[in-house]
C-alpha cells in the first residue's frame, strides 16, 4: 500500500467531520458542501456525499429543510442538530489531542 492510498483511508474517515464543520458554519445545500470541499484535499463527489448526508441525518447529526431556489426546483438546506454540534465539538477536541500527540511524541 502506497503512502497515497493510506491517505485515502484517512481522508475517508475524516470526511464526516469535515462535512459537520462545513454545515456548522452556515445553512448549506449539497452543492455548496461539494464546492467548499473541492478547494481542499477533501474534494468529494455526489456519489459519496449523498449517502453520507443521509446516514448523518439518520444518526440525527444533521437536519434539512426545503427552500425555494431562483434556479430550478427547491433545494435541501442542511443544518446541524444539537447532537451534531456536540459531535463536532467532541471531534474537534479529539483532533486537537491527536495534533498535540503528533507534535510531542518522540520529542526528548
Amino acid at each position, binding site marked *: 500500500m502506497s503512502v497515497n492510498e493510506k491517505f485515502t483511508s484517512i481522508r475517508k474517515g475524516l470526511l464526516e467531520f469535515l462535512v459537520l464543520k462545513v454545515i456548522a458554519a452556515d445553512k448549506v445545500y*449539497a452543492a455548496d458542501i461539494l464546492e467548499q470541499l473541492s478547494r481542499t484535499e477533501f474534494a468529494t463527489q455526489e456519489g459519496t456525499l449523498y449517502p453520507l448526508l443521509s446516514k448523518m441525518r439518520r444518526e440525527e447529526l444533521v437536519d434539512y429543510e426545503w427552500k425555494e431556489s431562483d434556479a430550478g*426546483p427547491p433545494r435541501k438546506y442542511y443544518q446541524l442538530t444539537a447532537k451534531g454540534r456536540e459531535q463536532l465539538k467532541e471531534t474537534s477536541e479529539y483532533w486537537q489531542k491527536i495534533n498535540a500527540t503528533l507534535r510531542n511524541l518522540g520529542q526528548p
Partner: protein
Amino acid sequence: MNKVISINLNGNAYQLEEGGFEALRAYLDTAGRRLESNPDKAEIIADIEEAIAAKFRSLLGANKTVIVEKEVAGIIADMGPVEDASGAAEAPPPGPGAQPAGAGKDAQGAAPVPPARRLFKIHEGAKIGGVCTGLAAYFNIDVTLVRIAFAFLIFAWGSGLLLYVLMWLILPSASTPAEMAAAHGMASATAQEFIRRAREGYYEGMKTFGDRRAYREWKRKFKSEMRGWKREMKWGLHPLSGQPPPAGAWIALPVLNTLISAVSIVGFIALISLVATGDVFGLGFFVWWPFWARLLTLIGIICLVRCPLKAIRRSYYGYPWGYYWGPAGSLWCILKWVFVVYLVIWIFGIHAGFHDALYHLPPKLHHAADSVQDWWNRQ
C-alpha cells in the same frame, strides 16, 4: 445522426442521446444495487437524480436541447460512484449473483424457512386477534371483505364467532419477517427480486417517454412480463425449490399440526363438558374443588399440553429453538381460554338456534348442549 431519448428526472424531461441514456441507466442501476440495504435508498436516489438534473440544466440552453453521450459520461464521472456510507464495511461487494440483502437476510437464520404460503394470524393492522388479517393475506384479498364475511356469519347462529375463536386458538401467529413473508405467500428475497425487475422495466419504459405508440407497446410488453415473473415466482415459492426445509419437517409439521388441533378440540369439548356437567367427561375431575378452581385448572392443563407442542412447531419455522413467550404468554393463553368459556356459555344461553344445531351432533355434545342450557336457565 443519433437517436434521442427523453427521460424524466424528478419530474422534469430531458433529452439524451441513446448511448448517454444507457450509461445513465447503468449508473443509476448500480447505485440502486449498492444502496440495496440502505433504509434511505429512495431518498438518496432521488437526491442523486436531482443533482444529475441540475448538471443537465447547466448544460442546456436556448440553442442546445439535447445532452450528448460524452456529456453524460462526464457528468457520471463527476458524480463519482455511489458508495453506501452506512453499510460499506459489512455489505459484501455487489456483483452478479449477489444476494438481495434486507428482509431476506433475517429469513436465513440457523434453520432455513420453507417459503410456502401458510395461514397465520397477523397482528399488524388487526382489530381483534389477527385472524381476518391472516386470512386476507393468505387469499390475497381485502381484509375488510373478510371482516364483513365474518360479521355475516356471526348472524348465522353465531357460527362466525365460533369459527373465529377456533381459528384464533389454532392458528400460529406470524411474528418473524420470514413468517410474515410466508403469510403473504412470498419469500421476502423473492419479493425484492420482483421489485428490482419491475424497476428495471420502468427504466426501460423511460426510453419511450414522449412517444405514445412506443409507450403503449412498452406498457403491453411490461405487463405481460410482469405476469410471467409472477408465475415464475410462484414456482420459486414451491417448498421443494429454494432452501431445503429442516430435516423431518415434512413428517413433523403435519403431525404437530394435527396434534395441536386435536388438543385444542379435545380441550374445547372438555371445557363445554365441564361447564355443562360440572365434570370432565364424567371422570370426576377435582369435583371437591369449587367450580372456578376446576375451570382454571382445566384451562391450565390445556395450555400446558399445547405450549410445548406449539414451541416445537415454531422451531420448524426458522427459530433454532422454540419460541417462548414467558409467563406473560401463558397468562395470555389462559385469558384466551377463559374468554372461550365465556363465549360458549353466552352462545348456548342466548342462541337457541345454535343449541338446536348442536342437537344433531354426536350424543356427547348433544348432552352437553342440553346441560349448558339447563345451567343457564337456573342462573
